[in-house]
């Protein structure tokens, strides 16, 4: 029974990892841009939710609001700063975005303090589901279902709509998109903002489960990269599969060998890099 819970926890965790990683992966696919500030957007999403809930605003308003605010902040940053460095080598991307991540992290410490806090689960999902021996918090069930629906909608939007085709086409050739009359700078900004907004949403969803603290972004960033590497750069299905894999590995290991739980996800990544360098579903 304990393993069932851990697998469920792992799926919940994995879906959050997926949300985090898919934004990173789409941004890399379209812009060839390595974004080390992605974890900071997750951090900001979590803290904005925390702040809004503290002000007695309903979680159901706070969660989408946090994601939208993060997307706006990211869009402005892209349009004013990041688009200037796309053409430079990846090391410059890392330099600038690590700097940006530190600025956001310090901003969080200045505004909300260094200690962190907890976010109450929304009242409508406060209890636990009890079926015989099976006891599980409603909020976690909600988080799994919500992200599963979102994952499906995102997949549909990306693969079956004109807008999704535009994003996929842009990641093949921006020059051709310009020749077809698309303002690629605007598409870039929109996609960057959207990817960051997903990270913000992951932060908002995670806040009632794990609370908030100023360094959660760093941890999230490393996990997101692990997921993207395992799944394959730029692959949507890869991000989903790898997110779930990493989440379940981490949760199961937390029971079997708690000290090694974090270690094992890096072992999994190393294994994938050695056996299939492009990742499970990678194209590049």
């Amino acid at each position, binding site marked *: 029974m304990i393993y069932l819970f851990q697998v469920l926890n792992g799926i919940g965790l994995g879906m959050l990892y997926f949300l985090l990683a898919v934004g990173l992966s789409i941004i890399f696919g379209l812009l060839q841009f390595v974004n080390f500030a992605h974890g900071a957007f997750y951090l900001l999403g979590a803290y904005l939710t925390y702040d809004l809930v503290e002000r007695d605003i309903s979680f159901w308003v706070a969660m989408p609001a946090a994601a939208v605010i993060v997307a706006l902040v990211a869009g402005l940053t892209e349009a004013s700063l990041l688009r200037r460095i796309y053409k430079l080598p990846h090391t410059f991307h890392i330099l600038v975005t690590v700097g940006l991540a530190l600025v956001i992290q310090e901003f969080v410490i200045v505004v909300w303090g260094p200690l962190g806090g907890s976010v109450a689960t929304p009242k409508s999902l406060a209890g636990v589901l009890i079926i015989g021996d099976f006891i599980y918090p409603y909020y976690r069930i909600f988080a799994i279902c919500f992200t599963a629906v979102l994952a499906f909608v995102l997949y549909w939007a990306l693969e079956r709509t004109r807008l999704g*085709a535009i994003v996929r*086409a842009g990641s093949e050739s921006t*020059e051709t998109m*310009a*020749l077809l009359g*698309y303002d690629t700078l605007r598409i870039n900004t929109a996609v960057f903002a959207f990817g960051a907004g997903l990270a913000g949403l992951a932060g908002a969803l995670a806040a009632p489960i794990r609370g908030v603290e100023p360094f959660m972004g760093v941890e999230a960033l490393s996990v997101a990269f692990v997921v993207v590497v395992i799944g394959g750069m730029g692959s949507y299905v890869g991000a989903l599969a790898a997110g779930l894999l990493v989440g379940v590995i981490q949760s199961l290991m937390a029971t079997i060998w708690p000290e090694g739980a974090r270690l094992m996800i890096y072992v999994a990544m190393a294994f994938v890099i050695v056996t299939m360098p492009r990742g499970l579903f990678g194209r590049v």
Partner: protein
Amino acid sequence: MSEALRIEDIHSYYGKSHIIQGVSLKVEEGEIVTLLGRNGAGKTSTLKSISGLLPPKRGHVWISGEETTGWPAYRTAQNGLALVPEHRGIFGLLTVEENLRISQRRGAQWSLADIYQIFPRLQERRKNSGGQLSGGEQQMLAIARALLGGPKVLMLDEPVEGLAPIIVEEIVAQIKKVRDAGVSILLVEQNLAVCAELADRHYIIELGKVVHHATSAEFIADHTVRDRYLGVDA
């Protein structure tokens, strides 16, 4: 007749190298005009300068009477100029139909049904991914995509290069249909037989300058010009 495209004394650079050194030309409405010249003469760069991919440092560009000098490529595309580059720019991971759908623009005179009528092969292969097409089919798709943007002027960069003769005939017939529908065409092509069959007028470009201009009849009659500037005889 009014001018669909006019460029006047444009100069363009790749870094410091001055590759287009004062090219002027025009395409009247409903005309097919070719731009000829040896490899490296500046044909592709001229097309890029007109489209805005390589904005000229000096000179002027007008599309249907509106000055578009210095506009970025996406704006000239929105204003009736389509460039089909030599590499065709097919999105290999999108299906044929997705390639076409993202190219549709409101107000264009062509619908997807019109396109499939001109290019029936594309309808047969609409569920295939762009990467699975043959070279000829990719070229058809690239032209079809350009048309869905509703261009007044279509610029084709070596559309039949490397294609089998039977496919070349098919594409030549399709280009005629496009012209007959009222689209003016500026064509860069090395295949002189194709140029002679399609074009009303010819410009020859050498080292970034227009060195010769002739109507199609004059050009066909004039062996010396072909030998001198193109070093080939068709």
